[in-house]
């Protein structure tokens, strides 16, 4: 009988952007069992949210994640708006969609770059991040921050995009599209990349459903689940089309992200062109009362906020369920039975965001 060894993968590991430990029980080079250990970066954000007033919590919610920050604040604002029966003006809805989709492109480019880095394709990693730099410039020009936009507020948005800025952004999005068309085929068609991703970390559709996978992980396994279909913000007006693949392996997850980049750029462009004139936010009075489960589609999957207000300025409860938390059980299933050398690729194919997961 082969002796079993346990290898700690993380919390500090060259391919892991954030601290999580995967304890890998090995038989030779094969993984028999994978156990996660989280808790390295817990910040107690849910408790802080109860101490701050509900308007200050918009900035706090934005800082749950350092990559998809805008969508956290958008989800929080949408939750509070539904508690206070506020209707966001049309221009506010469009601007939210523009920033959210630009954020999705930046997040997917980051994830694909890290994936390329995980199998040692440094050149591709650098080029993808070079393209991402244009997106960061767009965000800095329109919102003032390169990642923390701080533009979402309860009732709408705080900043407008002028027509002059919109022209520049459209030109920059053209550039992003051009660079993506050049570089992404290298990721999809390269022989070495396919050797490392095709058929690796397969998650069948029934297992994805059973283990509660969300986002690109679920969509790559054939589950057509995208909350943008339900039609929040300006998505109903933009003809959103979800991307679904069926193979369920690392390559399918990469393909979903690549196709989503194109779809997000298309929607951001359309929203910039179609955005109606008018107010960007609606004023409000009073405090939120009641409870709501706010949902939104993030780059990594569906994000849930449970918000409970009691009529005071402080929330009674603020609970965060991030997509990476839902994608951890599928990750453990994918790791079981795979080779040790494939662990970085599989772990990064779910695009883990541990800071969000631990709040």
């Amino acid at each position, binding site marked *: 009988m082969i002796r079993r060894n346990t290898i700690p993968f993380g919390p500090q590991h060259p391919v892991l952007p954030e601290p999580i430990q995967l304890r890998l029980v090995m038989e030779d080079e094969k993984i028999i069992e994978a156990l996660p250990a989280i808790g390295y970066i817990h910040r107690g954000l849910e408790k802080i949210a109860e101490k701050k007033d509900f308007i200050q919590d918009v900035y706090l919610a934005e800082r749950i994640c350092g990559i998809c920050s805008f969508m956290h604040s958008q989800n929080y604002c949408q939750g509070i708006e539904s508690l206070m029966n506020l209707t966001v003006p049309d221009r506010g809805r469009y601007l939210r969609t523009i920033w959210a989709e630009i954020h999705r492109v930046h997040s997917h480019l980051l994830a694909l770059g890290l994936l390329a880095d995980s199998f040692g394709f440094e050149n591709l990693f650098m080029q993808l991040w070079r393209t991402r730099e244009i997106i960061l*410039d767009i965000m800095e020009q329109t919102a003032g921050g390169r990642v923390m936009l701080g533009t979402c507020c309860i009732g709408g948005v705080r900043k407008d995009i002028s027509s002059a800025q919109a022209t520049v952004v459209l030109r920059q999005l053209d550039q992003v599209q051009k660079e993506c068309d050049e570089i992404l085929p*290298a990721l999809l*068609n390269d022989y070495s990349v396919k050797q490392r991703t095709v058929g690796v970390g397969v998650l069948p559709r029934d297992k994805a459903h059973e283990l509660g996978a969300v986002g690109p992980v679920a969509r790559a396994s054939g589950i057509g689940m995208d909350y943008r279909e339900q039609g929040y913000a300006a998505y109903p007006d933009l003809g959103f089309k979800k991307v679904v693949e069926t193979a369920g392996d690392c390559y399918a997850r990469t393909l979903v992200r690549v196709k989503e980049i194109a779809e997000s750029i298309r929607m951001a462009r359309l929203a910039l062109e179609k955005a109606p004139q008018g107010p960007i936010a609606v004023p409000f009075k009073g405090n939120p009362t009641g409870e709501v489960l706010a949902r939104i589609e993030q780059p990594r999957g569906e994000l849930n906020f449970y918000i409970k207000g009691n009529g005071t300025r402080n929330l009674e409860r603020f609970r965060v369920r991030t997509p990476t938390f839902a994608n951890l059980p599928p990750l453990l299933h994918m790791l079981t039975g795979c080779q040790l050398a494939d662990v970085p690729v599989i772990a990064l194919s779910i695009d883990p965001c541990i800071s969000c997961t631990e709040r």
Partner: protein
Amino acid sequence: MATMLSNIMKNLGRKAATRLYPFEKRELPTTTRGHLDIEIDKCIFCGACQKRCPTNAINVTRDPKTWAVNHYACIVCGYCVEVCPKDCLLLRNEHLPQP
């Protein structure tokens, strides 16, 4: 393989994507939220900014009249700029130099 090779050839003919920092510095957009500043002559020391600040970075006292911001705690969100009744707070686009 050929797709990556063509990219590499294109990159050889392009100018560098990076700049020679610190000799050549990036020009910041006017919209960048660099750091918080105050035009102290206009300030009435009402304390609205201190009350609203999400990170308690601002400290205002009425007697003696002082206004101070802890730049390490400030997240440059601009909420104080919005609530200031005298419009004396402003966000400058350059980042503060390291002390």
